[in-house]
């Protein structure tokens, strides 16, 4: 494919998925620095694989690119071990409760970045994007039962990881 064609394709993909990428990467990172990094990795991933992003599977590829970018960004985070506390603040909320909620959300985000790709995709689509199992199955190229199973295994993994931290 010519460079000019790749550029055009890249521009189309970027325009089509930029809102989605912004949304999903923000939900996965919850931190501006991590988000910037994940966004850069995603754009680079799209450019690298732009030829694959033409057909019906484009949505599924974009999920994989976003999840890989998110994992890379989290892996690169140094020394802070995912200790991010920047959830929106509700002034009426009790300070301890707010801290606890922010900490838990940060831990959940970090653990999602460590899940196998299919499980991470399943949990993101189900809970962060509120998609039904049919849509998840299509994007994961599996049956509805398979989608349920991935969500269920992801929840079990997250629960066990979180239980170990409590």
């Amino acid at each position, binding site marked *: 494919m*010519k*460079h000019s064609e*790749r*550029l055009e394709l*890249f*521009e189309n993909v*970027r325009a089509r998925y*930029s809102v989605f*990428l*912004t*949304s999903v*990467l*923000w*939900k996965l990172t*919850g931190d*501006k620095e991590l*988000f*910037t*990094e994940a*966004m*850069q*990795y995603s*754009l*680079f991933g799209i*450019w*690298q694989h732009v030829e694959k992003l033409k057909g019906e599977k484009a949505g599924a590829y974009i999920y994989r690119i976003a999840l890989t970018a998110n994992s890379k960004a989290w*892996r*690169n985070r*140094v*020394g802070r071990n995912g200790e991010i506390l920047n*959830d*929106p603040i509700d002034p009426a909320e009790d300070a301890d409760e707010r801290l606890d*909620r922010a900490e*838990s*959300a940060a831990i*959940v*985000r970090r653990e999602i970045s460590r899940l196998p790709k299919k499980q991470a995709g399943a*949990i993101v689509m189900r*809970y*962060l*994007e*509120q998609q039904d199992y049919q849509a998840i199955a299509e994007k994961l190229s599996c049956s509805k039962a398979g989608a349920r199973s991935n969500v269920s295994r992801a*929840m079990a993994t*997250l*629960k066990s990881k*979180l*239980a170990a931290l*409590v």
Partner: protein
Amino acid sequence: MNDDRLEEILNSIGAEEIPAEVRGIAQDASNNFNKFLRQPSQPAKPSLLELIMRSRTTKLAAAAVIVIAVLAGLPFLPKNTASVTLAGVAERLGQVKAIMYKMKMHVTGSMVPGMPQVSQDMESTIIISNDFGMKMEIDMTDPNTGKKMTQQMYLVPDSKLMVMVMPEQKRFTRMEFTDDLLAQMKKQNNDPREMIKQMMGAKYTDLGKSDINGIEVEGFKTTDPAIYGSAMGDVKVTLWVDAATWLPVLVEMDMTINEKMRITGTIYDYQWNVPVDKSIFEPVIPADYEAFPKEGMKMPEMTEEAAIEGLKIFADLCGHYPKQANMMDLMQEMTAVMIEQASKEKPGDMTETERVTKAMETMRPVQSFALLYMTLVQDKKEPVYYGESVGPDDIGAVLMRWKTAQNEYRVIFGDLSARTVTGEQLAELEKQPPK
């Protein structure tokens, strides 16, 4: 944590609204990337872009660490000895003939704004002999591939050479020193003795007693950028000295550059007066290794002439002088320029060797300028640099100046001419706004 609680957290994350600032960040990243892709003469092969964005930034980060490692040992001999305690440590270290220690460094951030961030780990073992030179073995992990890379760096005073051996690439690089630089590097090669002297010349605080692995230690901390000749942005260096032997136990470093890069590191596992053999310090280069670049490289000089040449090259490339005189800011500015240049090259325009040689030839005089500035800072010659407001067209404006004697200053002007002036003349010159 039960299922309900986990679901509640996940749902709350899912329900979060995207802050406007985050949308702006996404838009900027997207625009920058698009702009980069659409630069004129963008090479048709994606591999060059990949090289620039991944390999090159990775290598530059590694290069930055090596530069820092070398800079840490550059010849800065402070003139004041502010602390009897640290002076005592320095004196104690003066009796040491050979030292071995380890260093861990971690670099994160982006060399160039808008480029993916890198995360580079390096672990080194360094051995220094007063008689034979220095050897540094460096292990790195490529953050993109996870592959381990190794390098050996030798400083061979007798041959006036620094040699880097890269076994994975079957390559080696020779760098020649000038007589001045070598004469000083013979005395201090990334050496804890030098670090003590640097700290003595900077503003520091005594942290009092503490305990490291059962050893009673005394701590000294500095946040004075002068410790690295103002080559970094914010610095924090903490030195822990064995309270009984007066020998260093641990050095902790934390530096940020332009708020874009962060370098953290520790120096530890010191061994004093280790037995050494001359052969350890002789570079081992297998016959099938290739010299890269073939004709070797030269270290930048630290002279006014070389600095002026560097300023001229920078201005010719960019149309303005470097905004900052410190080494790391300058490297970032230069890297951005060189990546832009590389992106304009067509595949096959140059071989890798030619590209690296060209880059080094361009970089070296520019680094001379930063090295001169660092030396002047360390020598407390009150250097001031006006690169942000003075350009090549500001003929009579002071671009940089430093003190050479009581009431005597050396001045480099906007047109890169230089002359020595009195304090009064300098005051008059600095009153004039750039034209």
